[in-house]
């Protein structure tokens, strides 16, 4: 196995000049400190000790959160920036799809820009001449090629940039999240082009947020987080590890959101009971007389563990711990689920479900269990309430609890009914490639 790209213990430190800019040019010159002052004052490590190897002919995915160092790594591979320490080695001609059409001049025509851009990317005039028709056809810009580039739409601009870069015929192709450039049709064309590159044994380094793409296309992947390699290897495994971490992050975010909402709702809002208060008015808060108090609300997963991130179809339980200061007979438990738009997805209470209020005294617990959480992906908020039959609130928690539903299927709406498709035998589907 020969390596096309090798990163060996690469560290990249960016300088930040905040706070200590040069005082003036004069003082810098007088103190002869120009070169000294160009050294970092405050530094920011974008990549720390990153090593990975991309074998020749492989398609290699780089994934990670925003700011995790993916693009910095790509720029190092492209040779645009130099590593602070460590080494980057690349075999063969590189073409970087980092900023499409970066060298375009708006005033001159698409045709002239193709030539200049091609020369910038290392082609000779004759090579561009030979590929010119392919480039224009690929960009689907035949009728506009002689118009100044400033008249192009952003999609046309990107397409032309992409077309030039891909026709450089590189040995190593660097791709930074550029598949979002065109409409569906163009994206497919790009993917076909990538597939063709793979067949011809070219190396592709792909930086993307599209995990599907990584799983489908890449032979290997690396996950960067905070400038460090978290894991690399089989793309399915890497994507899985990444998703797990993302969920953990979301879990924390949900916990924080909930904590903040609760904090805002304290100290107890002594708003006078308003039995007619509109159930659908989306305003967070907590109110009620507190004769019975909801002391604790927890969202539990299938194992009874507190959780805030669920998968569509999971089991979800909402557990209420309540404390009745005096034994009471008139008591209704209520639950409401709202999506991020404030739409009530489901609301119910024990009275509607014809459970006659019995006595409640001291500390008690109530659990609202959903066997399959058939909601589509999104963020949801929960109302929990304790009130009298006539609506007089003991303790009302409005939109204070947040959870997230995740799904690998990108269906839309709110509710995912359990369903299946059936077809007559003359309809056939290929499973995803």
């Amino acid at each position, binding site marked *: 196995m020969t390596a096309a790209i090798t990163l060996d213990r690469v560290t990249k430190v960016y300088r930040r000049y905040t706070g200590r800019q040069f005082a003036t040019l004069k003082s810098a010159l007088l103190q002869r400190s120009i070169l000294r002052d160009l050294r970092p004052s405050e530094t920011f490590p974008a990549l720390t000790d990153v090593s990975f190897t991309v074998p020749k002919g492989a398609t290699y995915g780089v994934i990670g959160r925003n700011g995790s160092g993916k693009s910095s790594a790509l720029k190092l591979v492209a*040779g645009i*920036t130099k590593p602070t320490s460590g080494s980057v080695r690349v075999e063969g001609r590189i073409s*970087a799809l980092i900023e499409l059409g970066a060298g375009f001049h708006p005033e001159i025509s698409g045709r002239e820009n193709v030539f200049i851009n091609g*020369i*910038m990317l290392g082609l000779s005039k004759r090579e561009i001449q030979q590929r010119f028709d392919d480039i224009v056809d690929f960009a689907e810009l035949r009728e506009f090629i002689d118009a100044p580039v400033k008249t192009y739409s952003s999609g046309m601009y990107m397409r032309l940039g992409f077309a030039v870069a891909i026709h450089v015929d590189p040995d190593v192709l660097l791709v930074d999240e550029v598949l979002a450039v065109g409409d569906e049709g163009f994206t497919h064309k790009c993917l076909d082009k990538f597939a063709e590159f793979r067949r011809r044994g070219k190396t592709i380094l792909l930086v993307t947020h599209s995990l599907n793409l990584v799983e489908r296309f890449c032979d290997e992947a690396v996950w960067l987080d905070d400038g460090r390699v978290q894991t690399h290897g089989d793309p399915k495994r890497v994507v899985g590890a990444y998703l797990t971490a993302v969920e953990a992050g979301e879990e924390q975010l949900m916990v924080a959101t909930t904590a903040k909402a609760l904090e805002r709702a304290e100290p107890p809002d002594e708003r006078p009971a308003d039995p007619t208060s509109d159930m659908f008015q989306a305003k967070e808060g907590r109110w009620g007389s507190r004769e019975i108090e909801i002391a604790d609300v927890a969202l539990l997963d299938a194992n009874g563990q507190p959780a805030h991130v669920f998968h569509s179809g999971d089991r979800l339980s909402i557990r209420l711990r309540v404390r009745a200061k005096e034994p009471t007979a008139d008591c209704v438990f209520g639950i409401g689920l709202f999506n991020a738009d404030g739409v009530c997805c489901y609301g119910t209470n024990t009275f509607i479900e014809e459970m006659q209020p019995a006595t409640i005294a001291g500390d008690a617990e109530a659990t609202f269990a959903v066997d399959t959480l058939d909601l589509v992906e999104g963020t949801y908020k929960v109302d929990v309430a304790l009130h009298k039959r006539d609506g007089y609130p003991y303790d009302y928690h409005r939109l204070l609890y947040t959870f997230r539903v995740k799904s690998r299927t990108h269906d839309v709406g709110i509710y995912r009914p359990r369903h299946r498709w059936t077809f007559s035998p003359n309809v056939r589907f290929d499973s995803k490639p």
Partner: protein
Amino acid sequence: MLHNLASLVRYRGLVSSLVARELKARYRGSVLGFVWSFINPLLLLLIYSFVFTTIMPNETVGVQPYAVFMFCGILPWNWFSTSLSDAAGSLLAGGNLIKKVLFPAEVLPLVSVLANMVHFFLGFPILLVFLIASGHTPHLTALLWFPLIVAVQLLFASSLALMLAALTVHFRDIRDILANVLMLWFFATPIIYPWFQPNVQRFRWLFNINPFTHLAVSYQEVLFFVNGPFGHWKWLVALGGFSILLFLACYWLFDRLRDSFAEAV
């Protein structure tokens, strides 16, 4: 550094297409287009003629017509000064290229100098027409020096262009300072007054350390003072030698700062 310098030769295709792009883009959309490269110096020359023959007649012996004399220095000066001010902002203007594409940064300031050189060449025929019309037809032998003067100026301007471009990335104030320095420099150079004026000769040493003096005087001797020999050639050759050293020094500085461009632009 020497390796990078050598690779400059490889980029000549890139440089020439960028210069062409610069020129095309400059006049794209204007009705007269390239004709402006002729009209601009022509109008300038006519204005000077009008001012110095009608409004404020300059009767200095030996430099008549005065406007044509001045123009021998102003045309190259314009090339020089616009080159430097364009070059100072060239890396910032081309930030996209430096940050996003693997691109030899030194090409950008050099393109500024070369694009302005083309404008200089386009204005030159106008000057030649006026020289001939006013009886100052240059001698062929003197004109043989002309390419050397241009070459020295090209090297000298390129050196400063590289240095200014590299420094401006870190000190943005240079662009503003430069405009004022160039103004001062213009008046400190015998362009709108002749070199042999007694007041100039009295501070001769001061003028001698100004490199552009030797370029301006060379242009004037070769183009305007056609009856005398080109006596300034020693200074010109010396400036040529100095420019080579300056170019190496400025290129070294540029090379040192190169890695910081992608981050600081």
